[in-house]
C-alpha cells in the first residue's frame, strides 16, 4: 500500500487503493495470516539468549525465537522441548537426551546434537561470560553421540538440571568464543525468526517456515513495539493499533477493564516483592528482630493499599509451584501481630525506636509498598527512613550490601534450588543480605544433590520454614500479572514466568 501511494498520482488514488486493501483484508481476514502488533515497555538490551537476562529481553528471545532442550507448559511443568526424551544413568551422573528430528535453524541448517552440546559449552565459556553459567555448574562435559543423541556427564547428580535446561536456548555451533554474534542477529529454532530491529522503535519477527511444528504457527509474524508510557500503551490497545500488551500492572489493567474489544487475562506471577534485611550489622543481625519485622507486617493490607488488591501474600516460594511451596498458613509470623512484634523486640534487647533506612527500587508499585511498610513498622517501634535512589545507584547499593533494609522485586524461578541457593546460601552469588546459616546450607546442598523427589520436597519445606520467619528476606506478595488482549487474538496464554511461548500457537481473526 505504501508502494501504491508513492507511485500514485495523488491522494485519491492512494485512498482508493487503501479502500481496496481494506476490503480485501475483510474478505481474506480469516484465512490469511497476519502480523501481531505487541506493545512492550522497554527495548531489550540485546537478543543473545545466553547473555541477556532482564525481562525486556528474555520474554522476547526464549519461546518466540529460541527453544531449549526442555520446555515449560502453562502450569510450569517440565515438558519435552528440542529433546523428545531423556534417561539418566543409575548413579545420576550421565544423562542422555534424544533430540527431536527434523528441527532447523532460521537459516535452514539442521539442528543436531553437536549444536546442543556447543550451546551448553557456550554458556560455560569464559569468553561469553554468560550469567546462566551457574545453572550448569554441575556439567562436566556435553558430547554429541550421533546427530540426535546428546550425552551430558555431570560432576555430581543434579536435581535442578531439567529445570535449568528450560532456560538455556540452543544456538548454532561454532559460537563458543563469540559473545557478539547473536546480540543483534539472533539465530534460533523457534517459531519466529528475527527480521528487523529499529532501535527504540520496534523489533519485527517473521514466521519460520521450516519450524518443526509449522502447522501450529498461524501468525505471519510478531512486531514488538517499544512504548515506554503506560497511558500510550492503553490508547494503543484501545484503538486497535496493538493487539496485545503482554505484561501490565494492576493499575493499567483496572483502567482497561470493560473497554470494548479488550479482554484482560491474569495469572499469579512467579516474581515477588520483598523486604531485604542486612544481617551483617545491627539491628537485623538478630533473628528476633527479623521475626519481629515479619509479625509487624500486614501483607493483606499492603496488597490492598499498594497493589490494588491484586496479589497474594508471599511465602518464600509461590503457590504456583504446587509441589514445593509451603502454605503461608504454616508460617506463624504471617499472622499480623504487632504486640508479638513488640515483645520480640523487647526480648532482643534493642531499644525502640530503632532508626533504620530502607532503600527502595525505583518502580511505582515498590515505592507504594515501601510507604505502607514504613507505616506498619513504625507502629511497633521501627523508625524507617525511605531512600529513593535512581536505578543505577540502587543496583550498586544492593550489590554492595549498602543498606539496612531494601524494598525490591525478584524474578523468581520454577526450581527452588535456582532461587534459594544463590540468594541464601553462605557466599551465594546474590546473597546481598550476607546471610549465613550452616543448617540452611546443609539443607540446600542436600536439595541440590538429591534426586529423590520426596526427600527434596522435605528438605525445601524445612528451608522455607527457616527462611519464612527468621530469614533475611520478608517476602511480601506475588502480584497478579495481567495481559490485555484484543478480542480478535486467539490462543494466547499468559504464563506466570512471563514467557511469550504461546505466540507460536496464537492467531488473529
Amino acid at each position, binding site marked *: 500500500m*505504501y508502494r501504491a*501511494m508513492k507511485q500514485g498520482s495523488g*491522494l485519491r488514488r*492512494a485512498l482508493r487503493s487503501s479502500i481496496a486493501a481494506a476490503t480485501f483484508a475483510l474478505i481474506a481476514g480469516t484465512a490469511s495470516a497476519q502480523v501481531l502488533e505487541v506493545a512492550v515497555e522497554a*527495548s531489550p*538490551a*540485546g537478543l543473545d539468549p545466553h547473555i541477556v*537476562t*532482564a525481562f525486556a529481553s528474555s520474554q522476547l528471545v526464549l519461546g518466540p525465537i529460541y527453544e531449549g532442550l526442555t520446555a515449560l507448559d502453562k502450569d510450569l511443568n517440565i515438558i519435552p522441548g528440542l529433546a523428545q526424551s531423556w534417561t539418566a544413568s543409575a548413579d545420576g551422573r550421565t544423562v542422555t537426551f534424544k533430540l527431536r528430528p527434523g528441527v532447523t535453524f532460521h537459516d535452514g541448517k539442521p539442528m543436531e546434537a553437536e549444536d546442543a552440546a556447543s550451546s551448553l559449552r557456550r554458556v560455560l565459556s569464559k569468553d561469553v*561470560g554468560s*550469567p546462566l*553459567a*551457574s545453572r550448569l555448574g554441575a556439567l562436566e562435559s556435553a558430547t554429541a553421540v550421533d546427530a540426535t543423541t546428546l550425552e551430558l556427564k555431570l560432576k555430581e547428580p543434579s536435581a535442578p538440571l531439567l529445570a535449568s535446561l528450560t532456560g538455556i536456548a540452543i544456538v548454532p555451533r561454532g559460537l563458543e568464543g563469540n559473545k*557478539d554474534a547473536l*546480540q*543483534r542477529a539472533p539465530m534460533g529454532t523457534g517459531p519466529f525468526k528475527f527480521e528487523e530491529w*529499529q*532501535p*527504540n*522503535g*520496534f523489533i519485527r519477527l517473521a514466521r519460520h517456515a521450516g519450524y518443526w511444528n509449522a502447522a501450529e504457527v498461524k501468525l505471519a509474524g510478531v512486531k514488538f*513495539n*517499544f*512504548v*515506554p*508510557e503506560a*497511558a*500510550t500503551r492503553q*490508547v*494503543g490497545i*484501545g*484503538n*486497535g*493499533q496493538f493487539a496485545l500488551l503482554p505484561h501490565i500492572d494492576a493499575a493499567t489493567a483496572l483502567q482497561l477493564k470493560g473497554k470494548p474489544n479488550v479482554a484482560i487475562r491474569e495469572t499469579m506471577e512467579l516474581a515477588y516483592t520483598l523486604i531485604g534485611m542486612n544481617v551483617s550489622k545491627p539491628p537485623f543481625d538478630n533473628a528476633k528482630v527479623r521475626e519481629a519485622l515479619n509479625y509487624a507486617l500486614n501483607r493483606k493490607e499492603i496488597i490492598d493499599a499498594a497493589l490494588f488488591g491484586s496479589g497474594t501474600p508471599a511465602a518464600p516460594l509461590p503457590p504456583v509451584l504446587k509441589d514445593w511451596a509451603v502454605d503461608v498458613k504454616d508460617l506463624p509470623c504471617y499472622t499480623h501481630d504487632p504486640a508479638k512484634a513488640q515483645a520480640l523486640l523487647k526480648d532482643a534487647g534493642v531499644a525502640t525506636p530503632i532508626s533504620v533506612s530502607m532503600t527502595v527500587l525505583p518502580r511505582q508499585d515498590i515505592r507504594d509498598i515501601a510507604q505502607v511498610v514504613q507505616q506498619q513498622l513504625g507502629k511497633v517501634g521501627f523508625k524507617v527512613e525511605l531512600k529513593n*535512589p*535512581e*536505578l*543505577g*545507584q540502587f*543496583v*550498586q547499593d*544492593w*550489590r554492595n550490601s549498602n543498606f539496612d533494609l531494601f524494598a525490591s522485586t*525478584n*524474578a523468581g524461578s520454577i526450581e527452588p534450588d535456582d532461587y534459594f541457593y*544463590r540468594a541464601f546460601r553462605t557466599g551465594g*552469588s*546474590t546473597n546481598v543480605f550476607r546471610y549465613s546459616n550452616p543448617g540452611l546450607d546443609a539443607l540446600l546442598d542436600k536439595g541440590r544433590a538429591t534426586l529423590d523427589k520426596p526427600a527434596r520436597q522435605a528438605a525445601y519445606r524445612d528451608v522455607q520454614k527457616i527462611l519464612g520467619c527468621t530469614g533475611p528476606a520478608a517476602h511480601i506478595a506475588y502480584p497478579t500479572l495481567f495481559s490485555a488482549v484484543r478480542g480478535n487474538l486467539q490462543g494466547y496464554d499468559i504464563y506466570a514466568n512471563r514467557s511469550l511461548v504461546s505466540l507460536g500457537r496464537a492467531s488473529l481473526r
Partner: protein
Amino acid sequence: MLRHLFQRCLDLAIVLFGISVIVFMMIRLIPGDAVAIMLGANTEVTPERVAAMRSELGLDRPLLEQYLSWLGRALHGDFGTSIWTGRPVLQEVTAQIWPTLQLTVLALVIGAGLAVPLGCLMAHWRGGRADLVLRIGAIAGLTIPSFWLGIVMLITVASLAPSFASLGYVPFSEDPLGNLQRLLLPAIALALPILANLSRLVRTAMLDALSQDYIRTARAKGLSETAVLYRHALRNALIPFVTSVGIMTGYLLGGAIVVEQVFSIPGLGRLILGAIAERNYPLVQATILIVTVGFVLVNALVDLAYALIDPRLRTA
C-alpha cells in the same frame, strides 16, 4: 561580517570544549556503575568478570587519560561504540535524529508561525475582551507541561477518533501522510508553550514599537496604516522575537525528550534518556555534544538574522 563569523566559530569551539568536559565528568560522577548495571541485578557477577569488562571498556584507567583518548578519537570523527549495542555511536545517533529534527521544526513552524499574527492581533485589541482571553490562554499555555498535554490529547483523540493513528513514527519517505499524521499531536503539544510565550512577546514588542516617535512620524507623513504596522512596527518588534526563537529551539530539544516518550517516537530524546539510564558513556557524550552544537548553531543563525532585519547591525 567575516570577523563576526570567525568570532562565532571560536565561541563554538570553546563552548563545545567546555561541554565535553562537563558531560564527561558528570556522567562519571553521578552514582551508579555502568558495569554493575550492565551485568544486571539478577545475574552472577564475579569480581573477575567486573574487572574484565571494566578494562575492556577502558574504565579502569585514570579519568584524565580516558578523557584525552576520547577527545583524540572524537576529533577524528570517531565517537566510539555504544556499550550496549556495540554499534558506532554516530550510526546510532544519525538513525534517530530525524524524528526529533522533524518534530522540532514542525513545532517551531506551528508555534512561531502562529505567534506573529496572534501577537499582532492581541496588540491590536489591547485592553479589550479578546486580548484578555488570549492573554489568559497564553498563561495557561506557558504553565501546562507538554507531556501532560500530550497524554490528554492522546486520550481525547483516541476516544473521539479511534482510528486516527497517533502513536509511533514512520519515515516521511515511506508514508508521507502517515508520518505527518503521527507527528501532528506531538508537534502541537510541543508548540503550545512556544506559541504562548512568543505571542505574548510579540504583543509587548508591538505595543512598545507602536508607542515610539518614529511611528508617529510615519503616520504624520501620511503612510497607510498597513505600511506603518508592517514596515515600521513589526520589523522592529521582530528582533526580540527572533532572539527568543533561537533560545526556544534549545528548549524544544529538551521538551522533545518528554514528548517522544509519551508518543513513543524513536528520536534523539529517547536515545539520550536510555543512554543515561544505562550509563552508556560514549552515547551520552556524543548525543549531548550534538545537541549542543545544534543549539549553538541556531543561535549563531539568529545573530545573522538580526543583520537581515536591522540594516544598522550589518556594518557592526
